[in-house]
């Protein structure tokens, strides 16, 4: 028996296949359909990888530029999500390296004042998805983001990351263990500490 959610997934997958084929045939509606269907998850994927909003927007735009350039490499009938996320992952890696390169050439001229703490009463609440996943090592971040935000299956994540299903499972399990520890440890700034540890 197929649940409503599963039906939705199948339908979405069929639509993505359909729109990718239309995109290759230069249907003017296709880019817009694909962009609106995939961009929210892609943006969250980048946000969960320690990119701020502005940087995530840049990475999203860069991803679509690259998708456009290599759209002929999508083979009709094959799943779209691993293909898209493999490209997004590469854009993320390049973006991260670029940011790091720029950061190493920048010199702090003055110490910035501490930002006022907002949402003070909410400090004991569950952190956001981005905060939580941002505290994981990069390899675990991308696996969790693809599984939970992108909605990819284990096999699809393995394809998108040029890895095996076993390796993906292992990374996901390690991520869950780490997240459980972070969530169960009392005290503020635990996520920040975890991030600094990486």
């Amino acid at each position, binding site marked *: 028996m197929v649940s409503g959610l599963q039906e939705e997934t199948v339908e979405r997958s069929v639509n993505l296949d359909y729109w990718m084929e239309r995109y290759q045939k*230069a249907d003017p509606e296709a880019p817009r359909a694909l962009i609106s269907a995939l961009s*929210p998850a892609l943006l969250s994927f980048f946000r969960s990888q320690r990119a701020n909003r502005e940087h995530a927007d840049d990475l999203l735009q860069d991803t*679509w530029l690259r998708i456009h350039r290599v759209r002929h490499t999508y083979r009709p009938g094959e799943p779209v999500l691993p293909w898209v996320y493999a490209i997004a992952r590469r854009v993320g890696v390049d973006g991260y390296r670029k940011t790091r390169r720029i950061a190493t050439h920048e010199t702090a001229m003055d110490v910035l004042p501490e930002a006022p703490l907002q949402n003070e009463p909410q400090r004991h609440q569950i952190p956001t998805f981005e905060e939580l996943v941002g505290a994981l090592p990069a390899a675990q971040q991308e696996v969790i983001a693809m599984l939970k935000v992108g909605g990819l299956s284990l096999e699809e994540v393995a394809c998108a990351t040029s890895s095996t299903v076993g390796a993906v499972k292992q990374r*996901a399990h390690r991520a869950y*263990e780490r997240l459980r520890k972070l969530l169960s440890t009392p005290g503020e700034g635990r996520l920040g500490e975890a991030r600094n540890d990486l």
Partner: protein
Amino acid sequence: MTCKGLHSASIESGSTSPLYEEAADHVSHCSHCRRLLKALSPSEAGAQPSSASLDQIATMLATDLRPVRPIAAKKYTFITLVAIVVGVVALSVARMGALAIPVMSSLQTYAILGSLAVSIGLSAYSLVNQIVPGSRHRISPRLLPLTVSIFLMLLIAVAFPFRPEPDFWTRSWSCIRVGTIIGVLAALPLWLVLRRGAILSPAITGTAIGFFAGLAALTTLEIHCPNIQASHVLVGHLGVVILCAVTGLLLGTTVEGRLKGFLSSNFSGGACE
């Protein structure tokens, strides 16, 4: 069900399928798991992109929208790559002669040529997957050249005798020179086929192309060169494969650097206007 079991259930269900009954029952009793799943729930995930930025991207793509022909099926690309290697080896051997075959024992011939055939097949398969994003890699593209090189090194050390040899370096250099020319001749048509794909990681794919071309050169040398001393084969023949792979890596790294420069200038110059 334990908390660990719930991890597996949650990982395998992804973000869309509901948890099965036993897992759902565990969540209702375990506050830690409930907290974890709530934090990882997709509904909690992130802000939406602004419609203005999505419109901007769509307009940008629409300005350069023309029909494209999808890349050929994997099997055709695989056959083409293998055919290029076979063609280069056949032409080179036809020109230089198969002087090593009468010198090697049947066991040595089958062992080395059989291993090379398998290595070429695996490398071609890996390359076919590398040029299409999201392809399944049964063997890591990073590890394949290294693993195959170590395997061939051990095979050569076991299958061929180590004996002192006069003019070792002169003879080895002669084979390296010939092998490098064959490697370059193989790399050019390979590049023409592979450039149609999407090379997301030029350094890794560059290494793989160099390695694959090097295998064509190694196969030619194993059929042509009558010197079957293990040290000569390791340095003069297998050395060509290493040399070609390193050259591919260096070229790939250079291209990767330039590509990033191009992307960032293209991005800031055109896309954001």
